């Protein structure tokens, strides 16, 4: 009987220990997701292209397309005139509305933009990132000829280590961009009409 009492006593001590040592969960803290890009803008500014160099215009046409969760407003489209050049700038915002596109340029060895969707021969592109980073956050889009409307897809890719070395300047519109391993940081789609020179946005 005494032995059984000892056993029970030990059991109670153990049960007591478990409760003393236990505790409940912490109050959760709201963790603001800071990894994702929250909003993005693509700004198209008309420039003069002379001898392979851009010349800013005094009163350029500026078109801004804004994206929330990767989507532009319904019906959004822009007209790009043939034989003109547009400076294209990505502006990306974090959870607090701060611009973060410089992060992509600073980390150029693992970032690359791809501009997809245009019919062959309609667009050409020249990189203009700071310090020759060749990312595609800033560049010049040359409209070579008019075409039917198309959905332009701007993808900014976070590449796996070593993949950037396989990408050449000519890959800016490589539809097989998924061959360069990585994940998309930004994936934007909107409609573009490449129109005859002088027609502008006249409808």
């Amino acid at each position, binding site marked *: 009987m005494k032995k059984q009492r000892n056993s029970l006593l*030990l059991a109670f001590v153990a*049960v007591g220990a478990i409760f003393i040592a236990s505790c409940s969960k912490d109050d*959760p803290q*709201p963790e603001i997701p800071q990894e994702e890009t929250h*909003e993005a803008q693509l700004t198209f500014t008309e420039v003069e292209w002379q001898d392979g160099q851009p010349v800013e215009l005094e009163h350029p046409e500026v078109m801004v397309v804004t994206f929330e*969760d990767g989507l532009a407003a319904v019906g959004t489209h822009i007209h790009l005139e043939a034989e003109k050049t547009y400076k294209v700038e990505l502006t990306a915002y974090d959870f607090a509305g701060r611009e973060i596109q410089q992060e992509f340029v*600073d980390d150029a060895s693992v970032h690359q933009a791809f501009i997809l969707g245009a019919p062959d021969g309609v667009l050409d592109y020249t990189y203009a990132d700071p310090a020759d980073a060749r990312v595609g956050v800033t560049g010049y889009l040359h409209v070579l000829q008019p075409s039917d409307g198309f959905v332009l897809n701007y993808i900014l890719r976070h590449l*796996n280590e070593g993949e950037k070395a396989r990408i050449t300047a000519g890959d800016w519109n490589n539809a097989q961009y998924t*061959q360069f391993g990585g*994940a998309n940081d930004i994936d934007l789609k909107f409609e573009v009409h490449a129109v005859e020179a002088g027609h502008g946005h006249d409808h």
Partner: protein
Amino acid sequence: MQQIRKLFILTFFLTLFSICCARQHGCTIKISGRITDIDTGLPLSGVTITADPGGFQAISDSHGYFQLVSLCAGSEYRVTATSLGFESASTRLTLTTDSELDIVLHHGTIKLHDVDVVGHGQSVITTNPVKTLSREDIAEARGGSLAEHFDALAGVGTLQTGTTIAKPVINGMHSNRILVLNNGIRQEGQQWGSEHAPEIDPFIAKDFKLIKGAEGVRYGADAIGGVIMVMPPAMPVDPHLSGEIHTLYNTNGRVGAASGMLQSAIERINGLSWRIQGTAKRGGNTRAADYYLGNTGIEEANVSAAIQYSRGTSSLEAYYSRFQTSLGILTSAHIGSLADIEARLDAGRPLEDYPFSYRIAAPRQQVVHDLGKLKWHRDHADGSWLDIQYGIQRNHRQEYDVRRGDRDALPMLDMILTTQTLDASYQSAAKNGWESEFGANVSLQVNNNVPGTLNTPLIPNYDSFSSGVFFIQRLIRDGYELEGGIRYDFKTFDAAGFDNSLEYYGGYRQFHNVSGTLGAVIPMQDVWQLRSNIGLAWRAPSANELYSNGLHHGAALYEIGNPDLESERSLKWIVTPSYTAELFSLSLDVYAQYIDRYIYARPSAGEFMQTIRGTFPVFRYEQTDATFWGIDLTAHYHLPYKLSYQIEASMIRARDVTNDAYLPYIPGDRLDHFIRWEIPVSGKLSASYLKLGHRVVRRQTRYQEGSDYVAPPPAYQLLSAFGGTRLPIGDRFLDVTVSVNNLLNTSYKEYMNRFRYFSHDMGRNIGLKLGYIF
């Protein structure tokens, strides 16, 4: 495919032929008995009893009882009982009829080296089939993960995430549907995740057991599919210092590992003994048949320590272990969109080429698992015993992904799971064949996300309280054993978190269920035995099934939990006819399982999640009713010239009966067979053998169109080779084992590897393993 079908048919007929041949021998004598301690008179469990010639073996159960069967009349046998810390006892018997043999063991004053568990003795009392890894199986698997140790058994496979993460799968069940007992404590990591492997160092253990049935009564919730038991050896009673040193090198991944163990009893304090153990392991990028798999390195540093004080009929044991790992996740699996997956599927292999490297970069996991245990055991003179066991575990899991800026060093997921368990069980002594076991369990679990990840936690903070009581009654007669049990469990789950819109979510849930078991063991004609068990088990939904809400990187899908999920209930019936004769043994596990409210993630038709990273299909956790049935076959046949042939085969069929659909991630039919030659080496070498293995895995054709990105990969075949010997070094031994997996460097993909979209499985791997026991 035609060839594989022919191979199955050939195997079937070979098995039938073997049964016919074996039955002609008619060796039907058995020896029953009990092992006791000379000093205390108490029964000794885990003692290995062998009878030679013939290599018959048994292991004494928790009451000290053992039984050797299928011995031949008129033959003289040498019966030997060995156990660590005791002097071996031997006797010679010439048998004419069934005999009883009680053996009394004396405490050893000489050093005993190791206890070789080389059989499949059933030392766990249950009417479910129990499989034990042999010493040879363990030596061949050494250096691999816990799941890879059990992969050799029929009906057991692995769920892999690349080459670095593997979880055991028992009859199609894994994660929260199987229970892992680490030195008697329920292993509690974040096991809900398919990419979360059990945090256990296999070098710790000498005894690896697997129970295939639903053992919900004895072990509580979650033991729906089966139980894996990983046990260190018994504590030493010999005051001399003893131990083991194991080293290994694997060519694939250039993996090096070393593990050492020291132990002794303390002479000045009678009954006090100690053990320390540690393992270090490092490996680099593994290699498929034709290319390196980038970022698949692994590092491990594990330690454990135990101390035990035994006095009279009581013993108190304290145990601590730390498992610490850092492992890389295949770089090519870092994808972000359906287009990426499609590109990789088209390529059929990684698009990147990486050299060999030991460097581990993001994506990667870092896990530290601490386990502490305090156990009090008391034996009573009548054979009954009482166990009270307290366990505490702390699992700190950090997962790192490729992030913006310089945040790769900041974990995306940082969780600390603390679990405390208290188990008490009492088993009565047998009276007129009746014996009872009853017990109670209490568990408290707290999960906290560590703030500062700058990312929405995948699961919320929660605390959970579980309690259960059980009662098992057993009737043991000469001609049969019956077992019945019942259990009641109660569980609370209180969760709180903020989702990615910073909205509060969570709530309090209660679950309670009754589990039951009913089983029988019936020996027939001495060489046959029929084992059958029906088990009713359950599990509560896990945190991710209730509350996950986020993008699953690596799978390019968006998973959404369901806070209204109810608990799963399972009824599993398993019947195991087995045959054991001098030359032939056979075990067939036939099972059927019905799971009410089976939880799994289904693609939500037409639903997509739009994010700035792209558009992703939505998978929602739902419940359905599911059926599983299958057959596992193990057969072993001794051929002339010290050759033997062994088969391990399994097939499983599973269906979502509510939606009349196939279930995902069910293993394909598998056959492993081996031819083994025990090399008759004269001189100093002993236990020398060579073994050739062949694995055939059929394509999983029972796959639901649209439930995955791609149909299951084709069937494949692999060859393997193993060899080993024991070299004497002074009065000690050095065990040498060589293993060659995927001998022909075959390029293949396994359906149960979640990274099969991105890469092939591992190519040839040659391992050299040395074990010095002193």
